[in-house]
Structures are given as structure tokens and as C-alpha cells.
């Protein structure tokens, strides 16, 4: 069963941009060194969701990109904001490989899924004659993610998109617990991937 959730998406375009069929984009999350906690499974979901939703441009999987450009886009070494970009792009080896692979945009992902509040009580017991649960528990989750689109040839940020999903999950239990979960993270993945695809389709 799926619980209720509310999704809010935003888009902001700073400068004009284009992308053609043989050009590529890469998604990269900000580092946990800076306190960012974007989940690996969220990045996997976003990569595969964008790849499925369009055929206008190529998307290079994050891990493949990091391996090809090792050690320059690792959590502790990747540019964390647009001001860090010129320094890394002054390395000719990196610049040439980006050019050869036609990687035009780098999308920096920040954000995470958090549980804001939880309440209720659920207890389970088992004995030789059987077992069961009784009670009611609920919690609120917020999945807030932001994607900042960087043009690697112009060394500028061309825009931002964001998705903010809130939802309440609950587990009522009378002998058998019935989880009713608000899938805020997967809804945020869907919302953000839709926004990124639409951003490049404009």
C-alpha cells in the first residue's frame, strides 16, 4: 500500500543553453565531506530514470564517469561549487577528455531524505501458540533534492531544478501489521528526473 505524499518542483534558468544528440551530461552528488548526504540509490534512480525518459542526449553513469576521470571527481576532490570549476578545467588532460567524450553539462545533486517526526507505538509478541502485533505507528518523511546544471564549456551555472516531496507513512497493526508507506524518495527521483528532462527540452 502506498501512503499520501505532496510534491513541489521548481525550475530556474540563468542563461540560454542547448544540447544536441551526440552530447552528454553527467550527474554528480556533492560530497559527504561537505555534509551532503545524497543517497547512492537516489543517484542510481536518477541516472536510470533520465536515461529512460529521453533520447535527446546521452547520460554517462556517475560511477563510470568517476572511474574515467579518477581522481578528479571523487567526493573529496570534485568541484563543490561553480567557483571551483575553472581550477579543475585548467587541467588540459581533463579538458581534453571532456571534449573527446562530448560531455557538455555536469549536474550537481544535493539533498537527502529525512524523517522529521515519528510517533505511535507498535508491539509484537510471539509464543508457542503463534504471534501477532498490535498498535499504530506513523512518521513524516521529507525528500528535498536540488540539481544545479553547470555548462562545462562556458564554466557557468545555467540553471537549477529542485524537487521537494513530503509524505506520511503509517503502520496500523491488529495481529498483522499493514505498512502504508509514502515513497517520498522515489517520488522525488521521478519529479527531479522529469524536471531535468524538461529543462533540456525547452
Amino acid at each position, binding site marked *: 500500500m502506498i501512503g499520501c505524499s505532496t510534491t513541489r518542483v521548481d525550475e530556474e534558468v540563468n542563461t540560454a543553453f542547448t544540447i544536441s544528440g551526440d552530447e552528454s551530461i553527467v550527474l554528480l552528488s556533492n560530497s559527504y565531506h561537505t555534509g551532503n548526504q545524497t*543517497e547512492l540509490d537516489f543517484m542510481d534512480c536518477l541516472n536510470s530514470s533520465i536515461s529512460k525518459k529521453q533520447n535527446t542526449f546521452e547520460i554517462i553513469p556517475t560511477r563510470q564517469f568517476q572511474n574515467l576521470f*579518477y*581522481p578528479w571527481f*571523487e*567526493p*573529496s*576532490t570534485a568541484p563543490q561549487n561553480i567557483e571551483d570549476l575553472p581550477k579543475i578545467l585548467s587541467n588540459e*588532460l581533463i579538458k581534453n*577528455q571532456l571534449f573527446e567524450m562530448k560531455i557538455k553539462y555536469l549536474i550537481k545533486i544535493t539533498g537527502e531524505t529525512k524523517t522529521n517526526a515519528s510517533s505511535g507505538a507498535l508491539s509484537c509478541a510471539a509464543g*508457542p501458540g503463534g504471534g501477532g502485533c498490535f498498535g499504530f505507528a506513523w512518521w513524516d518523511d521529507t525528500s528535498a533534492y536540488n540539481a544545479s546544471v553547470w555548462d562545462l564549456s562556458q564554466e557557468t551555472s545555467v540553471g537549477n531544478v529542485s524537487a521537494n516531496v513530503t509524505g506520511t507513512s503509517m503502520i496500523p497493526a491488529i495481529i498483522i501489521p499493514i505498512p502504508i508507506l509514502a515513497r517520498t524518495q522515489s517520488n522525488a527521483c521521478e519529479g527531479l528526473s522529469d524536471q531535468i528532462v524538461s529543462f533540456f527540452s525547452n
Partner: protein
Amino acid sequence: MNNAVKKIIILQSLLLIGCGSQNLVIETYIPKPLVKKYESITANLTFDEEIKNFIFTPEQLQKREASVEINFGNTQAKLFENIFSSFFPINALEKNPDESSKLILIDIKLDKFEYLTPQMAANQKYSVWFKYSIQIQDKDKRAIDDWIITGYGEQETGVFSGDEAFKRAIQIALRDTGANLSIKAQDELDKITDMIG
């Protein structure tokens, strides 16, 4: 078997599972770094014993929190060979280098390996640190440079089992060590090439 005996056996089993030690075997993949080549240098690498075949066993204080044995095998040596061989040819100690290239000696020691488990830190993640000391000398064993290289990795337990999350945190920290070493070497090798003439 009566119920009391059954309960005792179940309780003992649970206690044994709870106190059982973990045995981790570490293997990791570190990509070839995208760095400048220095064809005029050849290097001899030497490692201390804790890098060649390191089996970590916790000290008494740590044992109370998490009893774990970590077998690194030659993963660390492979990491350093992989990174340094991307910059210049690595020379086996018994061979004389080509006369056209200049020899440098690189001695690598593991200074510190530290970790925090979710039980120790009261959170939901494993955190791992490595600290290495690297001494660089010319062919006459005169000191050229000393580097301190660190690596840090963390992994939320999340969908992983305890062992798997710990292993991933170690692998991330080793990969971070390789990244920091590559960048340090890229920054310093021009200067070292000039120094050895």
C-alpha cells in the same frame, strides 16, 4: 526437551551471535588515474609490513565495541603500485634502471588505520581513516620530500548488512587515499624532477 531448556539454548545462541567476531577480507578496484606521465623517472617502491600483507586485529579497548579482524592482503600495495605506475615506470629492486631515466626511491608506511562503527559513534554509519607516510629519496638515499597522505570513507548501514557497509567504507577510504595521492604527486612531481636534475 522442556520449555526452560529450549529458552536457555535460544538465549545462548543469541548471545553467541551477538558476541561473534567479524572477519572481513578487503579487495578493491582503483581506476588508473588520469595524470601526466614522467617518462624520465623510474621509481623503486618499498612498503612496510603493514602494507604488504596487513591483517588488522583490534586492540583491547576496541574489542569491547566491535571484535573484527580485517584481512587487507596486498590491497594497499596494489593501490600504491597502481597510482605510482601511472606517473612513471616502477622498477623491481634487483634491477638497474635504464641509464636515460633518473631513479627515485619511494618508501611507504601505514601510520594509522582507524574506524568508527555505528555502535561506537551512536549513528548509522561506518567511518574509516587511513594515514600514510611517504618518503621520497634520490638514488643515493638523500631525502627529497616527505608526504602525508590520508584517506577517509564513510558508508551508511542502510540497505547493507554490517559487514558489507564496513567493507564499503574501507574501500571508499582506500579509493580516497589513491585520489589524494594522485593529486599530491601531480602537484609535486615537476618540482622533484627539477631537483634530481
